[in-house]
């Protein structure tokens, strides 16, 4: 609750500054010269000792200078407008003022809120609520969503806050459905290019579909946390090239509308720094394409130019995150709220506590053992609607039919206990239950902790696994108090 109030405060500041710009200062008899100075600082909230970038928009008539001098009520500010916040022990507003060097009577100011070290600047709300209202009756079951603020790089005014972006620990990178395709992203973002200088376009593959669209650069805010100039995918903009056959032949549907994607975007915050990794850096695969005006060809892309994990690009709290969701009723719930907490062991609110660390292999897999059989390629994925494991023959649970096929439909709820073992040898038992998927889905509720389906050969711990747990996602190569990522902890 506190966080929501907090977000409103921030947007209030930004809106206030933005609205002030409309009038353009005094009217009528103003002589040539500076008429107004407006100041914007990003982020508008920083931690004790942190930095915020402030800029001044100087308006005037005739010949006038846009030069300003900066002052701050606390901390220090450079001639370039970079504020270094003071060290504080309680929440402290700092007023930053830019004064016209041409006309000292013209100035503007903005407030930057400085929070004490250790306060919850690293918490961002998440919700399971059926997805974008635009889906209507075709709502999303067990979809975890959040809001993401997207800005043109370096801008604090050309921004959009996009709601109902799917939170997916099974993927990496930000993908936003274009407004032209029924999503919300309408910013004009600078294009990312392939090594030959042509636009870089991606075929992002999921299990039953793909997203097709160019890679662009954007500033990504998750709450107060900023990742600057992040390569993201823009899904299906109006000017996207035709989908090449090697992308289309991956077989699933082209997720190029709101109803197909089921979300306004995808926030991939899995174990890795970038989406594809070394494979796509060393080979031209059917993931990245260099698109000239006439055709698209597969191209290799260095890892740093691939779609990036925004959490890894934060200036702080960038070694991983925690997905926190409460326990829910077995009958399901209409909605569930929780938090993303950024960083592991970087703040008082994100320590590992009693969580056990399960390291993974280079692909993000660990071992699940059930009834003496081991499945060494098992994984955790908030983007999976259910827990997917084994078969009807092994579990003894009947499979559902029709549109529910692939899920389990037992007559009575059944509990399973499975042992997970990290590549580090750490083992622990997890228990989950499986209810009748048809009954659950037909209840029209949106969040279930007991939705499960079949998957031979490995365990896919989807969203039900997250309810009642703090699940830690440690990013590859990053140090944490629990060791170096990649690992899961819970």
């Amino acid at each position, binding site marked *: 609750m506190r966080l929501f109030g907090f977000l409103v405060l921030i947007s209030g500041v930004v809106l206030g500054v933005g609205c002030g710009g409309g009038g353009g200062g005094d009217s009528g008899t103003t002589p040539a010269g500076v008429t107004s100075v407006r100041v914007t600082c990003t982020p508008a909230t920083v931690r004790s000792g942190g930095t915020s970038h402030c800029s001044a928009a100087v308006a005037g008539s005739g010949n006038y200078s846009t030069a300003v001098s900066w002052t701050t009520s606390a901390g220090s500010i450079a001639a370039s407008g970079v504020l270094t916040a003071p060290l504080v022990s309680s929440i402290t507003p700092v007023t930053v003022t830019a004064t016209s060097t041409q006309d000292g009577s013209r100035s503007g100011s903005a407030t930057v809120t400085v929070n004490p070290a250790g306060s919850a600047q690293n918490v961002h709300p998440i919700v399971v609520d059926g997805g974008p209202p635009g889906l209507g009756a075709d709502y*999303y079951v067990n979809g975890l969503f959040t809001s993401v603020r997207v800005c043109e790089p370096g801008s604090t005014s050309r921004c959009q806050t996009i709601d109902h972006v799917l939170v997916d620990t099974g*993927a990496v990178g930000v993908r936003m459905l274009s407004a032209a395709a029924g999503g919300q992203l309408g910013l004009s973002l600078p294009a990312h290019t392939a090594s030959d200088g042509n636009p870089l376009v991606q075929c992002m593959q999921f299990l039953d579909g793909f997203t097709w669209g160019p890679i662009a650069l954007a500033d990504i805010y998750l709450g107060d946390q900023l990742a600057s100039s992040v390569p993201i995918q823009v899904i299906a903009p109006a000017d996207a090239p035709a989908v090449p056959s090697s992308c289309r*032949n991956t077989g*699933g549907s082209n997720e190029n509308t709101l109803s197909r994607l089921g979300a306004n975007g995808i926030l991939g915050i899995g174990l890795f720094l970038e*989406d594809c990794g070394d494979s796509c850096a060393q080979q031209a695969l059917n993931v990245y394409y260099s698109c000239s005006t006439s055709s698209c060809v597969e191209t290799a892309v260095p890892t740093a130019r691939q779609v990036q994990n925004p959490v890894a690009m934060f200036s702080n709290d960038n070694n991983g995150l925690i997905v926190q969701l409460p326990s829910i009723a077995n009958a399901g719930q209409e909605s569930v709220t929780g938090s993303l907490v950024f960083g592991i062991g970087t703040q008082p609110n994100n320590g590992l506590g009693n969580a056990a660390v399960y390291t993974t292999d280079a692909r993000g897999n660990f071992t699940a053992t059930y009834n003496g059989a081991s499945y060494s390629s098992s994984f955790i994925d908030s983007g999976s609607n259910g827990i997917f494991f084994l078969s009807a023959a092994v579990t003894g649970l009947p499979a559902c039919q029709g549109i529910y096929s692939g899920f389990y439909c037992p007559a009575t709820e059944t509990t399973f206990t499975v042992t997970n073992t990290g590549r580090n040898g750490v083992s622990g038992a997890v228990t989950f239950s499986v209810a009748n998927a048809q009954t659950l889905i037909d209840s029209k509720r949106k969040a279930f902790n007991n939705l499960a389906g079949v998957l031979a050969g490995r365990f896919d711990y989807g969203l039900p696994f997250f309810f009642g747990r703090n699940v830690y996602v440690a990013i590859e190569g990053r140090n944490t108090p629990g060791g170096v990522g990649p690992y899961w902890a819970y």
Partner: protein
Amino acid sequence: MVKRSSPQLAAACSLMVACVVGATVSGSAHAELGGTVASVESDAAHLKGVVRLAPAQAYTLHEIEAATGHIVREYAADDGKIFGVGWEGPTVPDLRQLLGEQYFTKFQQAVAKRQSHRRGPVVIETSDFVFEQTGRLRDFRGRAYLPRAVPSGVGIGMIR
């Protein structure tokens, strides 16, 4: 980097009777479930892969290892007919090529009929066609087979 040590491959090689390196492109041959072993060469050419043969009781495994990090396994009955394919790799391979037009279409139709906004493994089971795919970018795995064409005595568990 994408090549990895593979105990399964080593085991396959110890069984093999032939190692075909850089399989020749066989003109119009087009791979598909239910097609003939000629399609393996087409797939190998498509994947720029190396084929290894591992004969077993009642079938022969043609394993294609591509430089892209993909491994494709095609299972041919003694009459030369492909009754199963399996794949793994960093991306989803060209399923139209691997399944053939008929079963690729079946796969697409079955996916379209599922409940909305399914995220998770794709499992399609019909009496004459089974398709399974799991994973995510960097680590996709799947298999498809024709239950009626699996030679008697061969367990479907070995198709991977």
